[in-house]
């Protein structure tokens, strides 16, 4: 980690403010995300029960629950934007690194969410569709939706434990042993919480007269709370770093909230809306505070180091700043809209500014660059070389330019060189004698001198008869 550094541009806000905003916006997002997940889970449970094994009176329950999904999921998505922004601005290196380490999974969140929302919206809107179709589509949608928090939990786990980064990259998108268990319990804990919160929201949204539905949702809440106690204990034991005082205190508060809520829900007269919401917030907020405290203990020391490294890196870059900006201006001013510019930029480094084959790279090439000024050929020949390159040499193809640009380049060469230079008899003799390295043209030095000179004369006479295109 010693050579990693924070984003070079400075932070727009003090880190403390970012952390405060991050906690608040993340809590808001989590609340809606839990309700969304819980709504989808319970909605699909009632869809299944309404077709198989449930009571006849349960059929409208699924509709009533799933109908609200569109609103909750929209809010969950939009409220997720702020914490995403804040964590990326505040802790870009740990977060982006974790995202990159699980890049394929992270990117799958998009199609997963689209498919989940569309299928679940279909199930919610088409109550008269075939039960098997609704169940099948809804189950697929739910499975995809439930995968998303699994991916997020993996990203957050990797964000917090930078010591595992190299191992993750070597293992190929897998968390090492202890972190994998931590991920599993953390993920299940989120799912459990979503059942509790989803059931609570729909319990209070259900009219008081609908006793059966309310009782059913109450059972989900109670069951969810019991499971959460077990999962919470396993999660606590799996935390890789020792939790500090703040985390322990917050967790204790949250556990007390769970116990009190369980007790109140078990009584014949369930709690009022206000007291239930208060208790749920007493559970959620300390739980998120504990999470934040654990995350801070893991990230802040690393972040401090990254910021220090970034400051040193800025100093190292300072001498090059003017050069970079000068280069930028030069780039903006060079417009590739004429053959002359294209020649200077794209060709001259090999073929030379004077088309004499003496560009700055010429000495590094085994096959010497052509002396373009000495070549006499048809436009079509040039165009073909530009379009296809010359295999076996360094000459690439230039279809990176449009036909107009290529034609302009050829015209520019015609104007600049071909009227002043020709393929001289001396050059022809050199090629026949020594061959043309990098092409199929062999050396004919073994032929007698007179014969080679005769060939030059004959080839010259052939050329003179060709019309120019």
């Amino acid at each position, binding site marked *: 980690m010693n*050579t990693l*550094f924070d*984003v*070079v*541009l400075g932070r*727009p806000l003090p880190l403390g403010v970012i952390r405060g905003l991050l906690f608040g916006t993340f809590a808001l997002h989590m609340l809606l995300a839990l309700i969304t997940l819980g709504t989808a889970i319970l909605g699909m449970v009632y869809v299944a029960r309404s077709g198989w094994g449930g009571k006849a009176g349960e059929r409208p329950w699924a509709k009533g629950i799933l109908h609200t999904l*569109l*609103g909750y999921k*929209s*809010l969950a*998505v*939009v*409220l997720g*934007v702020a914490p995403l*922004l804040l964590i*990326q*601005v505040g802790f870009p290196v740990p*977060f*982006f*690194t974790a*995202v*990159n380490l699980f890049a394929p999974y*992270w*990117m799958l*969140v*998009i199609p997963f*969410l*689209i498919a989940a929302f*569309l299928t679940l*919206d279909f199930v919610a809107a088409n109550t008269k569709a075939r039960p098997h179709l609704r169940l099948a589509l809804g189950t697929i949608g739910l499975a995809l939706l439930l995968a998303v928090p699994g991916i997020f939990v993996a990203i957050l786990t990797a964000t917090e434990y930078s010591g595992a980064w190299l191992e993750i*990259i070597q293992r190929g998108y897998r968390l090492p042993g202890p972190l994998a268990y931590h991920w599993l319990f953390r993920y299940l804990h989120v799912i459990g919480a979503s059942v509790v919160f989803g059931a609570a929201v729909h319990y209070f949204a259900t009219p008081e007269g609908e006793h059966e539905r309310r009782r059913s949702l109450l059972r989900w809440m109670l069951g969810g709370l019991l499971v959460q106690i077990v999962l919470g204990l396993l999660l606590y034991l799996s935390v890789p770093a020792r939790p500090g005082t703040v985390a322990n205190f917050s967790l204790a508060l949250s556990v007390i909230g769970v116990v009190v809520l369980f007790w109140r829900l078990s009584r014949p007269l369930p709690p009022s809306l206000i007291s239930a919401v208060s208790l749920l917030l007493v559970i959620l907020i300390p739980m998120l505070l504990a999470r934040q405290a654990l995350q801070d203990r893991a990230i802040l020391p690393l972040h401090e180091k990254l910021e220090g490294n970034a400051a040193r890196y800025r100093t*190292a*870059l300072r001498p*090059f700043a003017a050069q*970079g*900006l000068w280069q*930028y201006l030069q780039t*903006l001013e060079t*417009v*590739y*809209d004429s053959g002359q510019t294209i020649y200077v*930029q*794209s060709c001259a*480094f*090999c073929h030379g500014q004077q088309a004499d084959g003496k560009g700055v*790279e010429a000495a590094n*090439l*085994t096959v010497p660059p052509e002396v373009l000024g000495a070549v006499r050929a048809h436009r079509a020949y040039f165009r073909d070389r530009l379009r296809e*390159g010359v295999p*076996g040499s*360094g*000459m*690439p*193809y230039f*279809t*990176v330019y*449009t*036909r*107009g640009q290529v034609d302009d380049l050829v015209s520019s060469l015609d104007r600049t060189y071909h009227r002043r230079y020709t393929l001289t008899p001396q050059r022809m003799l050199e090629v026949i004698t020594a061959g043309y390295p*990098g092409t199929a043209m062999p050396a004919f030095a073994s032929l007698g001198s007179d014969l080679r000179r005769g060939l030059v004369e004959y080839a010259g006479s052939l050329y003179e008869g060709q019309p120019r295109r």
Partner: protein
Amino acid sequence: MQFPIYQVPYLGNGMTIALDAVLHVVISHGFAIGVFSLIVLGEYLGWRKPSEAWESFAHDLLRITVVITTGIGAITGVGIWFLTSALEPRGIGSLLRIFFWPWFVEWFAFTGEVIAILIYYYTWTSWIGERKPRHIQTGAICLAFAVASAFLITGILGFMLTPDGWPWNKSLWWAFFNPTFLSQLLLRLSGAAAMGGIFATGYLLFAAREESFRREALRLFGRVVLWGTLATGACAGWYFAVVPSRYKAQAVFSVLTSALSQHPELFWIGNGVAVALILLLGRAATRGAMPLARALALPAALLAVACVGEFERVREFIRGPYVMPGYMYANQVLLDEKPLFEREGLLRSSFWYSAASGRQGVASGGRYLFGQNCSVCHTIGGINDIVQRVRGRSEDGIAAIIAHTHEMVSFMPPFSGTVEERRLLARYLYQAATGGIAVGVPSRFVAGGAEGTK
């Protein structure tokens, strides 16, 4: 470098982001602004006339629009961010630090838009009678949030092409209100209106509606298509007039690519046909020529989507060697870093190379250098395959080309690294092209053996 490098196999990073982004732009512009404004207008006409046909048409169109915008539009919008976080972390990380406040305000606009659309959707059947004007106002508020969202994002997108004085003064105001900001904003809004007209026309033509209502609505939507398209054309002209000449010279190639660059007439023919067919749809609709309008509805809608793809492709491509002109090259190397890497070496400066085990040889170093310098655009074995690009070239020829990429090809960034690293990359590419080393289809560019090779 700061982050590990990942590339989407076969598809490449640019195409992956583009597919998501184009879908998002079509929905956020075409539906969230274009179609939605016609829904609010339809509801208003239904209340004002009064007309049950307008009321019910607007309500039906809203149901579809809400599902599309919240189910696909919102996710693909966040998706652009998700993808760049994974594929171009340094670029998005820097952009976020410059544009934190516009982005933060955009969160409020986005939240306001979603809350307004949910209220609008859920209260359609209950806010009736005297409460109807309030319902229509809610729709208008939702629309205002959508336009505010476009306003905020366009400032950032404009910066990525024309940062104006920001590279020198680092002023947010200069960065946001940059030379292409206003023309691009108006281009997007007029394009949204045209697309909204096309999509609403398509829905109207094929949904079961009473014939007299269909003709009346068609006339209105046809006018929206006509005027929206003409305004889009005018704004596109203004936009490209402001774009620096350096970038404009790359516009035609950006659409045709190497595959069609020798047939530039296709660019003009394609665009001409697209505009002509869309205008013809508008004309057919205003004149009530139902069969012609039906025949043109789907092609016009597809061509509108293609035009969105074309514009976004041109905008993203022509800025050429930069992802943030004046600050960062497309391969996420800072302009100031290039001379540093030339002196110090890129491999030595990269944590993700130097910390990994098994880093030796051409395959390991060459692959990492390719990943850092080239993989933002080139894949191995997929779209814009580098192996195909260098095939037939000599090793020393490749080394010479790498030294001058930014001069030779106007939209390519320069190579960052020492002379030895340049030769190492050339050897890697030459051996990859000639079968000297097995490169597979890598997605992860890390040191050591064959990791990351699929």
